[in-house]
């Protein structure tokens, strides 16, 4: 019995990425080279983006040298029996590991660092993305050799599709009995988009050869414009170093949002927190988190802010250059707005806004009457409309929304300061609950309601000493996570019932 075994290759891809074509190239090259080869797949018919796999076996002895013998090639990939595992996407690479196809004794794992988020990751109300570092760590731990590169970016740079880059990376692994030239010939023989496919192939091959694993995409943060240094100075001498960058960013943002006085208000509001931070020996941890959330809350999303953003030159540049790739063609940008009664009342003074809102609520008009607008922001009239709204900035502090926001902010800050006196963790958890309040319309209302429920059922009792602080901090964290699970509030209701059930049991036990 001979010890030569088939070389096995498992390709994990998403529907529509050309995994079938990639498989075809490899099979054609192997056939051309005279090796017995077989591929199979479970194509997910026509639909896109579902996970799918392709499987290839190549027997590395030429048919001509085998006489009448033929190897029996398997149709299903064997757990622990894979030489090369390739994935076009990082989570799918993780799936091949979880399914037992990547083993330290033999598997060469090739995976793209790019992510194509699954629906479950995208629909979370907070951050549902799977832990990327964990994926990378587990893939590295389970593979014999590992090549992790951003194949999506390489494909974009080389003007090809990801399957060509994958082919190059496979060629670069040196584990197939096929040369780069033989694979290139297969791509040429296929005859479709030959130049771009060859460019992708070479990009993948070069990346495999370089073995340098480029850093994962640097997050492209956009900071607020730099402002008169006076307030920033105040930050630098009054706050612990850890919190300073955040507070400076907050100051800059609020100057751009409303003005110098508003930024001063921001710093004034942070003063009691600075004290609380110091009292709790938090070394700026609490202050940093509160400074972050407070800046976000104080720059709440009202019509003025939306208008400001819509006519920002940087925005238009981004759309024209990055998204439309305009050279000198005419282009246009159309914005979708649907303001309702609440949006109109935002800038009215409270004495006018309150009765309008009251009547509207009684009549059930809220959430029903909206004016759907599609504004061509690249037209003169469209631009002017946004410009006018943006200019209403000065009126903002006199408006109803402003009053409401400041009230809610003050009450939230009060809770944090009080809690921090009891326990730093409790203070941090309450600060973090600010994440619940975001969005527009229904979303915003729901966020406020969720915060109110948590404040009422957990924070209040905790501050009154009815729940011990460590347990309260845990409970608030769980409730916050649960509130971000589903928009219907089922998660939060269930979570609170469990927490209160446990408390009741504990009280009964005591």
């Amino acid at each position, binding site marked *: 019995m001979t010890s030569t075994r088939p070389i096995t290759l498992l390709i994990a891809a998403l529907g529509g990425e050309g995994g079938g074509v990639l498989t075809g190239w490899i099979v054609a090259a192997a056939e051309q080279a005279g090796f017995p080869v077989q591929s*199979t797949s479970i194509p997910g018919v026509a*639909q896109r983006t579902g996970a799918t796999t392709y499987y290839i076996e190549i027997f590395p002895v030429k048919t001509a040298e085998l006489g009448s013998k033929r190897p*029996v090639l398997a149709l299903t990939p064997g757990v622990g029996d894979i030489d090369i595992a390739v994935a076009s996407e990082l989570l799918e690479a993780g799936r091949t590991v979880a399914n037992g196809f990547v083993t330290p004794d033999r598997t060469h794992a090739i995976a793209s660092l790019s992510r194509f988020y699954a629906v479950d990751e995208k*629909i979370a109300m*907070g951050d549902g993305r799977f832990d990327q570092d*964990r994926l990378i760590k587990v893939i590295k731990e389970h593979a014999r050799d590992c090549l992790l590169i951003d194949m999506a970016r390489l494909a974009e740079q080389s003007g090809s599709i990801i399957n060509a880059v994958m082919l190059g990376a496979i060629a670069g692994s040196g584990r197939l009995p096929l040369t780069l030239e033989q694979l290139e010939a297969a791509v040429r023989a296929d005859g479709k988009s030959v130049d771009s496919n060859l460019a992708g192939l070479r990009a993948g091959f070069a990346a495999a050869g370089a073995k340098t694993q480029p850093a994962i995409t640097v997050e492209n943060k956009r900071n607020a414009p730099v402002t008169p240094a006076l307030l920033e100075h105040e930050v630098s001498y009054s706050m612990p170093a850890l919190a300073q960058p955040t507070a400076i960013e907050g100051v800059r*943002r609020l100057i751009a949002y409303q003005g110098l006085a508003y930024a001063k208000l921001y710093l004034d509001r942070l003063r009691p927190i600075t004290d609380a931070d110091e009292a709790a020996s938090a070394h700026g941890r609490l202050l940093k988190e509160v400074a972050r959330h407070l800046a976000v809350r104080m720059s709440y999303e009202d019509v003025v802010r939306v208008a400001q953003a819509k006519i920002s*030159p940087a925005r238009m540049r981004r759309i024209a250059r990055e998204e439309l790739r305009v050279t000198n063609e*005419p282009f246009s940008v159309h914005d979708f707005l649907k303001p309702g009664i609440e949006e109109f009342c935002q800038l009215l003074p409270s004495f006018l806004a309150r009765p309008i809102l009251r009547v509207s609520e009684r009549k059930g008009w809220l959430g029903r009457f909206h004016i759907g607008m599609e504004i061509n922001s690249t037209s003169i009239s469209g631009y002017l409309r946004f410009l006018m709204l943006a200019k209403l900035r000065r009126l903002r502090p006199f408006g109803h929304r402003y009053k409401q926001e400041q009230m809610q902010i003050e009450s939230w800050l009060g809770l944090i300061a009080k809690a921090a006196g009891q326990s730093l963790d409790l203070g941090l958890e309450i600060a973090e609950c600010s994440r619940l309040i975001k969005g527009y319309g*229904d979303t915003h209302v729901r966020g406020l309601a969720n915060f109110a429920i948590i404040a009422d059922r957990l924070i209040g009792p905790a501050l009154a000493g009815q729940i011990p602080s460590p347990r309260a901090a845990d409970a608030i964290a769980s409730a916050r996570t649960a509130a971000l699970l589903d928009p219907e509030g089922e998660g939060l209701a269930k979570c609170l019932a469990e927490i209160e059930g446990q408390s009741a049991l504990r009280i009964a036990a005591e």
Partner: protein
Amino acid sequence: MERSFKKEVQALRLGDGDTFHGEGILAVTKALLQSGVSYVGGYQGAPVSHLLDVLVDARDIMAELGVHLETCANEASAAAMLGASINYPLRGAVTWKSIVGTNVAADALSNLSSPGVIGGVMIILGEDYGEGASVIQERSYAYALKSSMWLLDPRPDLPSIVRTVEKGFELSEASHAPVMLELRIRACHATGSFAAKDNRKAEFSGLNRIAGPPRFNYARLSHPPVIFTQEKLKVEQRLPAACAFIREHKLNETIAGELDDVGIIVMGGLTNSVLRALERMGLADVFGASRIPLKVLNVVYPLVPEEIRGFCAGKRAVLVVEEGHPDYIEQAVNVELRRADIQTKVFGKGPLPQAGEYTSDVLLEGLAAFLQAARPAGLDADSVAGKARGLIAHKPKAAAALGPLPPRPPAFCTGCPERPVFAAIKLMQRELGPTHISTDIGCHSFATFAPFSLGNSILGYGMSLASAAAVGPNMDRRPIAIMGDGGFWHNGLITGVASTMFNKGDGVLIVMQNGYASATGQQAIPSTVHGRTGAVPGVDIEQTLRSMGVKWLRTVHSYSVAVMTKTLKEAMRSAERGLKVIIADGECQLARQRRVRAEDADKLTRGERVTRMRYGVDDEICTGDHSCIRLSGCPSLTVKPSPDPLRSDPVATVIDSCVGCGLCGEVAHAAVLCPSFYRAEIVRNASWRERALFRLRQKVIGWLGGYGGEMAA
């Protein structure tokens, strides 16, 4: 069609002395032509959708051979077509997805197999079982048993598949019974090669027609009283004839092995998997020589008693490797051994699991358990079993290292016209409360996955409306039935609409009119408008419904979420009783893009005006709540890290693959989401007027202090 086989079908012209290279389904087609078929047909469904696509693309080649091709309206019509072989020496083959297609075809199949056939009949079943399957997990075997049709399950390599097809026709003719050939998903798509033969022209076909019907012969009818005779014929003549043919032509294989006090009886389709498992355990070589004897059943029904007895005689134990439930083969082997009073112990389900696909790790574990129970002489069973288990021991740990991974089921494509309909249903339910939704087979069943998670029952292709018939009368709110145009023509028109009209039923039916049987790869259907061949069948769904007396009928452009939501609310609230049908009209975007992209490229080269549209999200305005994603689920609408240094939750973003279908804008409006969505348009080869207006606007905006001027440079 999704995939064109125009290039590949040229391989069908190969002849004696050539070597065929290609995919399983293409090899099957070649085998049909080498067998001299007179007619072929079928209904699409994975994993044999592509077989039908191949047949359609090979029309010209088949026409040269006089082979008639029928793209049938459903599996029942395909099965009924086989009736041509009852009276005439015509070989015919049809294909469909099993188990579901066989269910639909069952009536015709019973009536076919009772009188039996003169011309060889082969049904190629795409056995949609295990990984990647999309239907209920049942075995086609039951149909073979109950109707006395023979079931072939060839070893999954091309030479073996091709030989089994050719021999299958002879078997059918020798025993006057229809033959089914089952191909699993991976076998359909397995590539390989075989020595080709010349195609054979049938004795009778379109090129040489039969002069007229035979003399009247009551025995060819499935009608009393001859049905009683036919039942006896099945067991007294056809079954023995089939067994004799199988033995004589050695359709089943025996692999000898030195550990001959044990043996393995394996379904042909699982042979490669079993041999690979044995090889990994050190009990076989890569060329298929095994230390344990194997009986490979390329014909799984009928079993030949002499072969079973011969293989088992003298063995202490055999393992039956038979995937799926019930264990028909294992039972039959037990009965056969009992009858012959052979004391061989039969293992099967036990060491191997009762249900589920026999993947590599399942087989390794099953073989290990069998060897430890059977203990073949001259083998250290424990050490071999230990080795087998060691090969797969890492799997649970590897899975635990990552924890549960987000699933990635198939989803609506970018720009799919069906997605907006479900967004509208979600919005309607938000206002009127949840209602019973009976769903169907087709792309639209992806709405059962997140983010829509809509649907209470699936009863089969075209069955949604019928399956709501007893829900409506027992529930406060009207049920909604969802059906694709594929399902409508396959079955829904009669089973659902006719039955509801007949019973004056009350309810809402949404027909997704996208123009194709899309889930299976965009095959044409009676209402297809854009035929790939130019010929348009042109049967109209709306007219059809009106002619059946449907009064409440609205056709809504499927991307108009607001109009769709309003129409749905109207249908739900209407005091008028009776069937309310909403036709959601929007062409399958995959098909549309394929057409439009080519047209646009042509226009660009000709210098004509082309606009490209895409949607976007302002990442400064988006707060990362993802409501929009929960109402859409579009692959092009995803998340990215927030550019805001003070925010941690990712924000929504539209990626380059956006086709500008407009759903984002519609949903943002209809659901009053947030003001972050925009539509961006670029005009290539614009007219001078357009360019002048654009420059003017840019200048004025620049003068007003905006962004003008800089982009127009």
